[in-house]
């Protein structure tokens, strides 16, 4: 037996089963499953939500990936035209027209390279026919050039074989590796004849400019280069969030093929998981995706953990459904974006815009409407509708009433009344204009006092313009609908996941590492641990006047003054235990010089200010 390792053989396998779920979840005391069917459905939903969310995401995002990959494969296998053959000029064979080497430059983020290559290989395999045999060669930073050439020059290569060289990541290649590879392909007489049937596909993670800058001019002239973009990150993120959001953002999805065990009855629902994401959680996912490494698996893992936490907090959260409120929310949000959004014509295609506004509403809450009123786009659309001619306003009201009437009839009744007031207000100025004319025509002579009265009444009538007040009333009423409906989800809703990660006094669970903050919080901020010797020792060390190097005697003196209810012998033991522990954590280090009794402070707190 190896020292330091102990082995224990068990009989069971740890898997997500009924026993493990029952042990961890605390159902309400008066709760019992009504039937076996209900119990089976609960556990099936639990397992599907926690472990198979990535399948939903894969199904949702597959169309985007397939479109991009198919575009690359189609271009790279397209038969070249005759005119392209005369473009290339090679110093190795100046009299022989060879043609250029087709190269597809694909910009792809780091974490999607594996998926890109896998999908691309699949596409090449699908396009292989009897007349066109496609053979791919994957090149990494560990390969040698001669190995690549040897693979291309295999004896069993037929005249119809097409070689596709896939370079996994251009940034990781050795300097001049790519230029050497291309030059060698052209210099070798056997390879030179195969140039029309050799293709290149290069992945670059930073930007295409990196490739063009690091690729020599001679090499660039030998290639027919085309840029591709594998994925659009905004679309990917929108698809992912839409998968987890309430399903009214999307039409009912088709039945997934890879989840064959789904209950047929659930297919009629909008989504298997009637969960909605809270605003802070969506904001966290957005930062996690765009600010870190564009990792889809990280989003999937975060969502699955959030669902798991929700089951631990409230096992019966699925019973709480708010379909009516969510439908109203979706339709009102759609109307808002159509009338006051940036691109109303492309509202169906711009899912990202839709989600961006949704995330802002859920995250900022009441502050969203304060900010939206000051945005230039909103002001322009508002002035286009409510200022100037009334024709735009009437057309807006017709569209608005047609959409909102099925949602909120009471609101529409009041809006109809306001519309009638608007119509009547439009007719009133004509009557008021007639009376001044009559008064002018009837009176031949006018005294100064009478003239003052007439002008004062005109000014009063102008200020109390019924048309303007009617428009203001309509605008206020419309905005009231938006502001009351488009609000963050209420805290009483049970199906909001990711509202807060589970934290109690002892443990804290999260997906991201925050060691520095947690250690600082435990020793500098938490009142529960403020009297612990290690906390006192660290605070004494940090509050010393020296910033980097502190004499040990002075540190001990501060410690003795601040430690409470401890004998000298215990204080000495506590002091050195704390010192050893701080050194073990990595916060301090002893002096290199054995004669010195100084302590070097390696880490200073960032989040909290130390105070004795």
């Amino acid at each position, binding site marked *: 037996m*190896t020292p*330091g*390792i*102990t*082995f*224990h*053989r*068990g*009989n069971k*396998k*740890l*898997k*997500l089963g009924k026993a*493990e779920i029952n*042990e*961890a979840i605390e159902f309400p005391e008066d709760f019992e499953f009504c039937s076996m069917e209900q119990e089976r459905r609960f556990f099936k939903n639990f397992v599907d939500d*926690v472990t198979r969310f990535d399948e939903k995401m894969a199904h949702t995002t597959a169309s985007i990936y397939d479109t991009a990959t198919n575009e690359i494969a189609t271009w790279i296998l397209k038969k070249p035209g005759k005119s392209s053959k005369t473009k290339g000029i090679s110093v190795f064979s100046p009299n022989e027209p060879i043609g250029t080497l087709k190269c597809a430059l694909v910009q792809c983020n780091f*974490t999607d390279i594996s998926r890109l290559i896998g999908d691309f290989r699949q596409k090449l395999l699908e396009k292989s026919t009897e007349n066109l045999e496609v053979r791919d060669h994957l090149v990494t930073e560990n390969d040698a050039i001669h190995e690549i050439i040897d693979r291309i020059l295999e004896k069993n290569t037929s005249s119809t074989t097409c070689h596709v060289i896939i370079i996994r990541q251009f940034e990781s290649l050795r300097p001049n590796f790519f230029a050497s590879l291309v030059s060698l392909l052209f210099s070798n007489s056997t390879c030179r004849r195969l140039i029309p049937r050799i293709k290149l596909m290069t992945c670059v993670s930073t930007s295409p400019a990196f490739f063009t800058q690091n690729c020599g001019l001679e090499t660039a002239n030998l290639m027919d280069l085309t840029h591709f973009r594998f994925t659009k990150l905004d679309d990917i993120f929108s698809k992912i969030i839409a998968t987890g959001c309430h399903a009214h953002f999307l039409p009912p999805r088709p039945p997934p093929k890879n989840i064959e065990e789904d209950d047929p009855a659930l297919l009629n629902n909008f989504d298997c998981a009637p969960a909605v994401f809270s605003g802070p959680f969506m904001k966290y996912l957005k930062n996690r995706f765009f600010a870190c490494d564009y*990792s889809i*698996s990280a989003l999937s*893992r975060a969502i699955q*953990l959030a669902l*798991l936490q929700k089951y631990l907090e409230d096992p019966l959260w699925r019973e709480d459904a708010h379909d009516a409120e969510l439908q109203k929310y979706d339709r009102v949000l759609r109307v808002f974006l159509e009338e006051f959004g940036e691109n109303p014509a492309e509202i169906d295609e711009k899912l990202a815009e839709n989600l961006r506004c949704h995330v802002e509403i859920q995250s900022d809450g009441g502050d969203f409407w304060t900010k939206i009123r000051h945005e230039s786009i909103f002001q322009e659309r508002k002035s286009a509708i409510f200022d100037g001619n009334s024709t735009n306003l009437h057309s807006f009201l017709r569209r608005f009433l047609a959409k909102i009437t099925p949602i909120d009839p009471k609101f529409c009744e009041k809006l109809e009344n306001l519309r009638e007031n608007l119509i009547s207000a439009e007719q009133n100025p004509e009557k008021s204009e007639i009376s001044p004319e009559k008064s002018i025509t009837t009176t031949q002579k006018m005294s100064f006092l009478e003239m003052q009265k007439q002008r004062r009444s005109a000014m009063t009538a102008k200020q109390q313009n019924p048309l303007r007040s009617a428009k203001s009333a309509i605008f206020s009423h419309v905005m009231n609908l938006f502001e009351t409906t488009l609000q963050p989800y209420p805290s009483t809703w049970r199906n909001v996941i990711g509202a807060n990660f589970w934290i109690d006094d*002892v*443990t*804290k*669970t999260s997906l991201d*590492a925050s*060691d*520095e903050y*947690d*250690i600082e919080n*435990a020793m500098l901020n*938490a009142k529960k*641990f403020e009297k612990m010797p*290690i906390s006192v020792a660290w605070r004494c060390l940090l509050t010393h006047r020296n910033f980097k190097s502190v004499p*040990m*005697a002075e540190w*001990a*003196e501060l410690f003795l003054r601040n430690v409470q209810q401890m*004998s000298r*012998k*215990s204080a*000495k*033991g*506590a*002091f*050195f*235990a704390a*010192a*050893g*522990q701080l*050194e*073990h*954590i*990595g*916060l301090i280090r*002893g002096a290199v010089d*054995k004669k010195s*009794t100084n302590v070097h402070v390696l880490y200073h707190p960032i989040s909290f200010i130390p105070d004795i």
Partner: protein
Amino acid sequence: MPRPKILKRATVQPSAAVPVKKSTPEKEGSRQKKTNGKENASRNLQSNLEEDLEQLGFEDETVSMAQSAIENYFMQGKSASERMNNAKSRRGRRAGNGNTEEIEEDDEISNAITDFTKCDLPGLRNYITKKDNTEFEKRLEHLADNDFGKWKLYLAAGFNILLHGVGSKRDVLTEFENELSDYTYMRVDARKDGLNVKVLLGAINENMKLNCNVKRGQSTISWARSIRRKMNSQQLILIIDNIEAPDWRSDQEAFCELLENRDSVKLIATVDHIYSTFIWNSRQLSSLSFVHITINTFEIPLQELMTGDSRLLGLDARSNQSSHTMSSLDVFWKSLAVNSQKLFRLFFQMYFDTKKPVKFWDLFNAAKDDFIASTDAALRTQLVEFKDHRVLKWTRGDDGNDQLSGIVELRLVTEFLESKNMPLDEKKDE
């Protein structure tokens, strides 16, 4: 109330050790000194402090005779710390001190602060072992009742668990093992010397009976991949303490290969260092799928400190090489001839008289006068043995002659020679 009990226990231990000392006539001198210490106990606090130190030394001597590896390890650190700080400061203080009360008070305060500049490892061990853990045990029960089931659920759902926080978390994992008694698991102490990812892979291969031995020229990563494939439908839960140990930092890529299949191998690990997550890059963190759980136990990590290289506690390699204990000197003493024993005393007498390295020829002249050595070759032979046992350091001085420096502390040498009835001159003791 608990404190008087502790004091009583402390007083009982010396009396229990007395019969052991009766059988050794060479240690009568230490008993006499103890009696003298008791007579002078009422003089001042410094004497009481010295008495406490003598008692600590007494306990140390008893424990070290039991051939405990842990005790010897701690004793080495103690001597190193004492040699580093105490001897010079004490010498300087004696030379400059007077007899006024104010100076005595300053001496007491300075002496109290000076005690905190060196680590007393036996005292530290006693403090750790006697520390009250009632609150931690309650917290552990709370974890066992509320959290361990959820941790199993995390593992079952495909996540791995990473525990971090202030304090040792070994007891938490030990308690968690009870929850996993029905499953196949392996407890690994990453801070154990000689234990790394390769050893872990070998242990997995042996215990799980995979029959997948490492091939010649096969890298650790490919070996881990082979083991993962051989696992098939078997399952193993790895419980690793301090996964951020220095020997494990360079092989995390192989470790990620092993954990690629979440159903076969599951992981629950602990980390202590504040920058522990820096050993993984973003891709490795993505494949490991950690759920980070913060547990602040504030338990003193005794085992981690023992296996670490703490300079503040005197456990680093440089200190260990140049330290001695009473028991080690006693063993060395018994291996010496009578002349060598006399030479030992003579050398340290000369060394501590001048507080400077002793020139070889000066020592030779003194040894020749005392009939210890007749030729320089004979003296060199004896001194080489001293050097090999790290009693003294042999260097060449500026004038080209050999110089000898003592490594053992004055206090330790004084106590040791008194126990052998060959004390140093009384003037130096004063």
